[in-house]
């Protein structure tokens, strides 16, 4: 059994055990689980916050031990942060991140992809939103061709050689068909 050791060592009363997909167990302070809506709901449903309730280990079939370690690192760092609030109408995108976050997410893209999936599964909104903003920062300001390279997408659309704009191959998908360019067929000179 491998146990993570948070700054404040969890006692049996204030922790739960989660089990990763590869069978590793992690002791998690209940305070940390508040950042995960999935875990918080589970704890509430099973009343694991009560000291007189027996806590069975929680299997997390979609999370590997490596991902769990990474997630616990995130939860530890944000332990005393205020509760995550949904963006309000005054929200504006910022692609500036605190140094700790930049270092934390300085990982290969495939690991970041897995971490985003894990954050989505465990419903950790601050982590989920942060990774999404990192991804958005890699798309923003780029041309379609550059985005293709970043996201490793092979094109399946034909682009106009001059403008780079996709040619509508399926005329039925041209919605309202409005355009500002010259008529096709164009009126020939008389």
């Amino acid at each position, binding site marked *: 059994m491998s146990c993570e050791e948070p700054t404040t060592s969890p006692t049996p009363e204030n922790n739960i055990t989660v089990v990763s997909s590869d069978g590793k167990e992690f002791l998690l302070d209940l305070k940390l689980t508040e950042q995960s809506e999935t875990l918080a709901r589970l704890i509430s449903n099973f009343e694991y916050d009560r000291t007189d309730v027996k806590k069975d280990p929680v299997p997390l079939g979609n999370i590997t031990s490596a991902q769990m370690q990474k997630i616990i690192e995130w939860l530890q760092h944000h332990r005393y942060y205020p509760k995550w609030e949904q963006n309000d109408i005054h929200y504006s995108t910022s692609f500036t991140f605190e140094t700790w976050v930049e270092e934390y997410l300085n990982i290969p893209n495939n690991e970041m992809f897995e971490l985003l*999936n894990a954050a989505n599964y465990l419903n950790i909104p601050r982590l989920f939103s942060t990774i999404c903003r990192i991804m958005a920062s890699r798309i923003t300001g780029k041309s379609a061709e550059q985005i293709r390279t970043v996201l490793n997408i092979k094109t399946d659309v034909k682009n106009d050689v001059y403008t780079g704009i996709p040619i509508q191959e399926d*005329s039925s998908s041209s919605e309202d068909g409005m355009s500002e360019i010259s008529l096709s067929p164009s009126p020939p000179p008389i």
Partner: protein
Amino acid sequence: MENTSKFPLLHLPILAIKEVLSEVTPLDLINFSMVSRKTRLIAQDPVTEFKKYVEYAMEVFNWPTVKRLNIEKSTFVTFDQLSSFNCVSIHLSQTSISDKELNQFFKNWTTSKSNLNLQDLFIGIKDLESLETIFDLPHEVVDPGTVRTLHRGNHPIPVSGGIDIKRDDGTVATCYTQVCIGSLYLAMLVHLKL
């Protein structure tokens, strides 16, 4: 934080993809939509959302003004819509506007009720017999031997004969038929004060 391994964004749950796209600009969204058919589908909702802002700006601030409108398959365009297009140039192929509606369109134009900015209309008609209904309004048939130079945009167009109609402010337009890729069109060019 650049690294060389790829991030398969499109393999993420749609919720995550939408969250990523919610952070980028409308221009980024449009570039994203050009990447592949799938990205075009994914970007459809947020781009539609952006379109509402554009439509609001067009309606409230009269911006941007569409000067030239070309609709290749225009069967969906109604008479009311045609009358509301305050464009300089309207080109409609495969239209469902009837001869009677076109007649009303020209009557409205001659009485300054609609399309005041129109300089160039090019619209499909069924046959030459349609002209009887369409021009059931005051007009003047010009001798076919008379050639005048009118303009489509900046391009000079020599027009032989045609039918002149006159707006109540004195503006004159010449209408004439033209076959284009096997279809018959009615062209209307307003005489510009150059």
